[in-house]
């Protein structure tokens, strides 16, 4: 890695002020599992002068539950979330999503804040500088998104509103958006679904820090399922993931929340599928139809039609698993 300075922050205010004063030359580090790969490969034209360590801020890794719901500090580790008794018991989908990230070692290091703020995994965007030079793609201020004319098997099947077709890689985002989570930053509080943008990925300003994630208590009687499809059962990112929360009363679906991940630049809400389930008996036919509707508007690229088929089946299975 090329040199940088390193500062341990003791409060979020201090970290924010360091970012502010650096005028874009400082970067936050949480678990480092995403950032250090980026710095090793030197993929971005701007290399940070300073890393500001968030792990030294006391209390930012807390996990608490009150009458409204769950509050997870941005620095909570994925392994602590996956193994937390209250989360496993009352918010099992979040534990499953956290437990599906990468592999045990990465979960022992990576944080939930870093997971939501992680950069995308497009292999053109990530192309190492030391192997013939980084690629200045659209997302880095260049003129083209390489996925359009080259290998796009992992990219968006729901378009690229800003011209970049890289997908949001976060597993936890999918489950949290389906649960109606909100987040607090040093500057604002927003619904998690509005936190993500196609490019650069989040609404965060250069000197803004994600501090907490809030998850409302699941409705009485609701059930959820989180499914992830990947090539290897460990280490790999999702090719598609689906989070589904259903409230079924008297055999009929009262409420449905269905979100797909790794299919679009931001977590993708399957509104049509949710609508078709409401008021219906959740059986095989309804789940099948919801899967069809969820993918009806897909616009796959030249090499990723297979993702449409996977997503359709995953939506169906997630619905049946939470009915």
């Amino acid at each position, binding site marked *: 890695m090329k040199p940088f300075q390193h500062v341990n922050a003791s409060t979020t205010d201090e970290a924010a002020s360091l970012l502010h004063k650096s005028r874009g030359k400082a970067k936050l580090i949480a678990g*480092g599992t995403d950032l250090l790969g980026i710095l*090793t490969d030197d993929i971005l034209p701007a290399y940070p002068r300073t890393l500001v360590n968030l792990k030294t801020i006391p209390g930012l890794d807390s996990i608490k539950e009150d009458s409204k719901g769950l509050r997870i500090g941005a620095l909570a580790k994925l392994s602590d979330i996956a193994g937390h008794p209250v989360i496993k018991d009352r918010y099992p989908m979040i534990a499953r999503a956290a437990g599906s990230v990468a592999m045990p070692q990465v979960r022992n290091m990576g944080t939930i804040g870093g997971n939501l703020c992680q950069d995308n995994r497009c292999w053109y965007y990530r192309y190492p500088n030391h192997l013939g030079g980084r690629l200045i793609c659209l997302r880095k201020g260049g003129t083209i998104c390489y996925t359009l004319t080259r290998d796009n098997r992992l990219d968006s099947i729901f378009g690229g509103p800003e011209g970049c077709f890289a997908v949001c890689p976060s597993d936890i985002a999918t489950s949290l958006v389906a649960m109606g989570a909100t987040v607090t930053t040093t500057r604002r509080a927003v619904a998690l679904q509005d936190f993500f943008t196609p490019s650069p990925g989040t609404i965060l300003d250069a000197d803004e820090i994600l501090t907490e994630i809030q998850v409302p208590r699941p409705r009485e009687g609701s059930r959820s399922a989180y499914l992830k499809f990947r090539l290897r059962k460990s280490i790999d990112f999702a090719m598609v993931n689906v989070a589904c929360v259903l409230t079924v009363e008297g055999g009929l679906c009262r409420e449905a929340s269905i979100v797909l991940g790794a299919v679009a630049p931001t977590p993708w809400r399957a509104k049509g599928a949710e609508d078709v389930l409401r008021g219906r008996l959740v059986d095989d036919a309804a789940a099948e139809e919801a899967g069809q509707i969820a993918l009806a508007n897909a616009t796959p690229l030249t090499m990723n039609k297979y993702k449409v088929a996977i997503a359709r089946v995953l939506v169906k299975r997630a619905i049946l698993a939470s009915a």
Partner: protein
Amino acid sequence: MKQRTSRRPTVNLVINGNPQVLEVGVEVQPWHTLNYTLREVLSLKGTKVGCSHGGCGSCTVLREGKPILSCTTLTIECNGASIMTIEGLRDTSVMTAGGMRGTTTGNLHPLQQAFIDNYAFECGMCTSGMILSAEALLNSNPDPTEDDIKEALSGNLCRCGVYPNIVKAVHEAAKVKKND
């Protein structure tokens, strides 16, 4: 350990039970990974480096008993941490009798022995990481099922594909450790 006279900040580590004080700007730079420090500064070459991107597990070490990747960990962020590498697994108890009295036994750890007995490696590139992930598992779960073992080692790639023997070795080491 030589006396430190300068006022440079230090990174204090306990590596395999031995305290290490590393001066920032001398032995450690802010951008050094723990993997680099272990291998190139402390000459503990048992910790391997494969992908250096957090994707293979060959650089696994234990921090406070939990497996982490030394290639994506900054040494400067390990101040105060206790790190276990493969070198730390050997038996360090001292012989009290016989001609070798006073020296450590150097006996292999049950996992190391079981890996040898079960041919649980070919090239050996993944072995340190595999054994450390397994050690963390056995410390928290002395009687793991096959699925527990596979899950605990799922972040360690073996490009030689020795997985079945590795699972056997961990089972066997679990038995040996329990009977100890």
